[in-house]
């Protein structure tokens, strides 16, 4: 398991930058939106929580299809499935590796981007907290979607279509936490829900994803 985690981390560092890129994409979204929307501080501050969360989500999405597709293409997924390693565990580990190279750096960098979008001061803490709690759910849900589409070449867009609706609750609760946080309101319920989604997804989805993988390898 640890070997798999290390391998996946190493692979994403070697092949085109790991950490750097998820982050860079997030940054780009945060830069492009003001470019597209225009520079008024008031509007930007209002949409900042939502845009930051949408950006995080898209940054995750863009790297999702790599979770299994590369291993499928070069045959290592076959070999992993026949290895003495529960496939559920492999899925969980791969999702964790994905989180470490996308979700985590994104969370750490988010305050800087909040700055670019004029996020109100009170919001920063909650931005970081909500991303820290919510992004693991994005990775594990994404791993499920990737497992569903692993056999298909050009699965990228299909994957997006399948996964984004699944991201909706996480997005809403996550953005809600930041919005309420920024407005100085009570954030207990959405935060609890966010945590519940992450916990539930982490507990159950690896099984669904492993089942999907087995079906796809058949």
């Amino acid at each position, binding site marked *: 398991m640890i*070997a798999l985690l290390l*391998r996946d981390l190493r692979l994403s560092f070697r092949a085109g930058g790991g950490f750097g890129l998820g982050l860079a994409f997030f940054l780009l979204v945060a830069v492009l939106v003001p470019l597209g929307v225009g520079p008024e501080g008031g509007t930007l501050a209002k949409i900042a929580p939502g845009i930051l969360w949408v950006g995080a989500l898209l940054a995750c999405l863009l790297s999702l299809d790599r979770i299994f597709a590369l291993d499928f293409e*070069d045959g*290592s997924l*076959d*070999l992993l499935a*026949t290895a*003495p390693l529960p496939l559920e565990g492999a899925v969980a580990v791969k999702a964790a590796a994905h989180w470490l190279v996308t979700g985590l750096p994104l969370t750490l960098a988010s305050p800087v981007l909040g700055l670019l979008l004029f996020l109100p001061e009170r919001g920063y803490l909650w931005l970081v907290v909500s991303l820290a709690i919510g992004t693991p759910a994005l990775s594990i849900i994404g791993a499920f979607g990737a497992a569903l589409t692993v056999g298909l070449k050009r699965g990228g867009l299909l994957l997006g279509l399948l996964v984004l609706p699944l991201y909706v609750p996480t997005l809403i609760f996550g953005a809600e936490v930041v919005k309420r946080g920024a407005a100085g309101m009570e954030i207990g319920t959405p935060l609890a829900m966010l945590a519940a989604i992450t916990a539930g997804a982490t507990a159950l989805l690896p099984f669904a994803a492993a089942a999907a993988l087995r079906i796809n*390898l058949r």
Partner: protein
Amino acid sequence: MELVVSDLAVERGGLVVLAGVSFRLAAGGALVLRGPNGVGKTTLLRTLAGLQPAVAGSVSVPPESLAYASHADGLKAVLTVTENLAFWAAVYGTGAGAVAGAMQRMNLAALAERRAANLSAGQKRRLGLARLLVTGRPIWVLDEPTVSLDAASVELFAWVLRAHLASGGAALIATHIDLGLPEAEVLELAPFRADGPALAVAGGFDDSFDGAFG
């Protein structure tokens, strides 16, 4: 430690391709599967490896004793030769000693720090075979293992295989090329080919309503 296959039928793309395959592979034995392209060798091996369910018949094999090597080598292009092997050694829990030994035996020591992307076709294949050695599994299930290997490497492989058999291992090999293993038994698969309409997935949905349309 014995692989027993009895009356196995395997399917690909919803059609039974082989049926009635039976054989028995004991420790120390090697069995070469032969048959024309498309007869179903790969399908049979994948079924044995547990990657797809059998249509009929049974496979009995001690748990955790198979190591499967497919057409594709499952190498990571950006990892070095050592890293590739070390990963599988960790997965199979065989440790670093196994890695060094396997590299020695498959003549990969000189390439240890080379990335897999920068290997030639035959060198990649050698690395793929070295992976088998680090699994520490007794029964090898190999799909055309000597593709792209030069004569010297084929000999090296035969030699490694003999050592494996001598130490109580067993091997099931699908191949079109002569491996230089006179002691191996040969199973010709062509007679088990399941064609003719009668054998479309037996008992499957597609057949269960023959005649429903009058």
